[in-house]
């Protein structure tokens, strides 16, 4: 098991290096001249050239890339063009807020799992049909739109929750988390419900369920021990993938709710052409997603003994 984790971690590091390369390359294509952003339009060509040289902007791409990676290892993501504050500090201030929101969003999305189980067990019932229609609608609209609608209903009209910002103190914080968490998690909840349902229906047809019934086990144990553990295997993948969607969604949700996180920071930075900040944010979100993928893979091996064995035998990496 530890060998498996080690191998996957190594893979993850390679993927993260690749991610940084891709993001760095995309940002490098930007026609924006950092020197001009810093010095303003009034700067002369000479001072611009001097600054460029000082910042190492004239070096070959790979040199600059490796310099960025090395600095990143030291926790240095450069300095924001806008306010000359270290990008790492600015992201560090906001990252916990994003992680908090994303985690609450994932937690909310997990309600899809019991819903999926319940619908599968009552396939074709009115409850099943109605729930499936709801999940279809829930997955079809932009998440941030649900945020807007909920703010109108629950903040402006009913005044149950704040419409923006992050509350201080436990109660206020919890209250301010409710709407953004639902917003960011709602499409995941719909996906989880649908995946759990179809996976449960698939598992219910399996012969080992008949074997379990033939032993004389009762329905509750068959559902929890035999069906759910197998049905959750594909659901874990979906939850992991949803996390990526959710991190992407943080860009929108944080904007809707003025949540002080990395997502809102990246939007602000784009508007001020603050390339190092954008780069830092995108790299941070991608690294977070990679770490979550690693955790999902490890969790996977815990649920499905076949995966563990596969790694033990050949050491190949799974791909599908």
């Amino acid at each position, binding site marked *: 098991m530890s060998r498996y984790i080690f191998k996957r971690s190594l893979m993850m590091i390679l993927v993260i290096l*690749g991610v940084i390369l891709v993001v760095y390359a995309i940002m490098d294509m930007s026609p924006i001249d950092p020197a001009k952003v810093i010095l303003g339009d009034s700067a002369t060509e000479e001072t611009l050239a001097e600054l460029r040289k000082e910042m190492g902007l004239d070096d070959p791409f790979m040199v600059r890339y490796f310099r960025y990676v090395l600095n990143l290892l030291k926790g240095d993501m450069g300095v924001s063009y806008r306010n000359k504050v270290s990008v790492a500090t600015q992201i560090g201030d906001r990252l916990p807020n994003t992680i908090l929101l994303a985690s609450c969003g994932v937690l909310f999305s997990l309600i899809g799992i019991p819903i999926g189980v319940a619908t599968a067990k009552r396939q074709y019932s009115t409850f099943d049909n109605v729930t499936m229609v709801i999940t279809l609608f829930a997955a079809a609209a932009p998440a941030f739109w649900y945020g807007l*609608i909920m703010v109108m209903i629950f903040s402006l009209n009913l005044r149950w929750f704040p419409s923006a910002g992050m509350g201080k103190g436990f109660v206020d914080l919890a209250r301010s988390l409710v709407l953004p968490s639902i917003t960011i998690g709602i499409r995941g909840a719909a996906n989880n419900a649908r995946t759990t349902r179809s996976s449960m229906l698939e598992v219910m047809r399996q012969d080992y369920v008949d074997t379990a019934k033939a032993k004389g086990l009762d329905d509750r144990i068959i559902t929890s021990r035999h069906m759910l553990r197998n049905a959750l295997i594909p659901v874990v993948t979906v939850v992991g993938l949803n996390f990526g969607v959710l991190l992407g969604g943080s860009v929108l949700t944080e904007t809707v709710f003025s949540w002080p996180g990395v997502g809102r920071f990246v939007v602000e930075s784009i508007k001020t052409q603050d390339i190092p900040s954008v780069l830092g944010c995108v790299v941070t979100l991608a690294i977070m997603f990679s770490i979550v993928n690693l955790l999902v893979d490890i969790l996977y091996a815990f649920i499905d003994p076949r995966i563990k064995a596969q790694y033990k035998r050949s050491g190949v990496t799974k791909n599908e």
Partner: protein
Amino acid sequence: MSKAIENKANGQNKARSAWSEIIRRFKKSKPALFGLMFILFLVLVSLVTIVLDISNPEIYNNYVIKQNLRNKLDPPSWQHPFGCDEFGRDILFRVIWGTRYSLFIGLISIMIALFLGGTFGAIAGYYGKHVDNIIMRIMDVFLAIPSMVMAVAVVAALGTSTSNLLLAIAIPQAPRLARIVRASVMTVKDKEYIEATRALGASNATIIVKYVLPNAMAPIIVQASLSVGTAILNIAGLSFLGIGVQPPTPEWGSILSSARTYMRDAWHISVIPGLVIMITVLSLNLAGDGLRDAMDPKLKN
């Protein structure tokens, strides 16, 4: 999914008769038909507005983008069924004229993604071994970046021109489609009729394009149709943030971008464009699901 491929893998003639069978089954699903009809309706709306713009640009100027502050934030009425926005523009007109942006950016970006991802996926699946390994590792890197984050990065670096937006939406979808294409190609490529074609001396490129891809089409089309929905949601998100389609162009997401500011006074700016997006994406998903069930009834539960 492999069953669907197998069904149609017995040569191209059989593939053709399988298509009529797919159409028959697709027609049996009412939600899927509704979805398809609605999408065709939107395509029609887009084409009509394009023709109108060419023949009479005044309509666009006077009704879609011209500000009319007298009607500012008017709620829905008989005269303005969807109400008016903060500049007094009729939202119904803006929604109708916005159709083409949401729909075509979605469709075209997925075509680009399909071309990019399809090429790499087909090469990886067909050649296997090291080629496969290298290409798929690169795809893993792209997959590790959440699609909305990637789109934001592309727009941030390149700006918000239409072609950049298309790329911003297409690039994150490409590796997802590449995986599907690769898997489909891998299941098809070892079939006897491919072996036979190879024995006749056909080149690899010919085999991939003429024989492997047509028979691996089913899951690819399904995934692509579902991806268009994702693309529309992403483009709406970018426009909502103000880094997508730029005002005064009436893309649905950009109509929503002012919604938050005027939430207290004008609920309709938030509600209506969102509903339109929802029904569109829902239609795409219904059509996609229907197509999947029609291509492989075994997958239906």
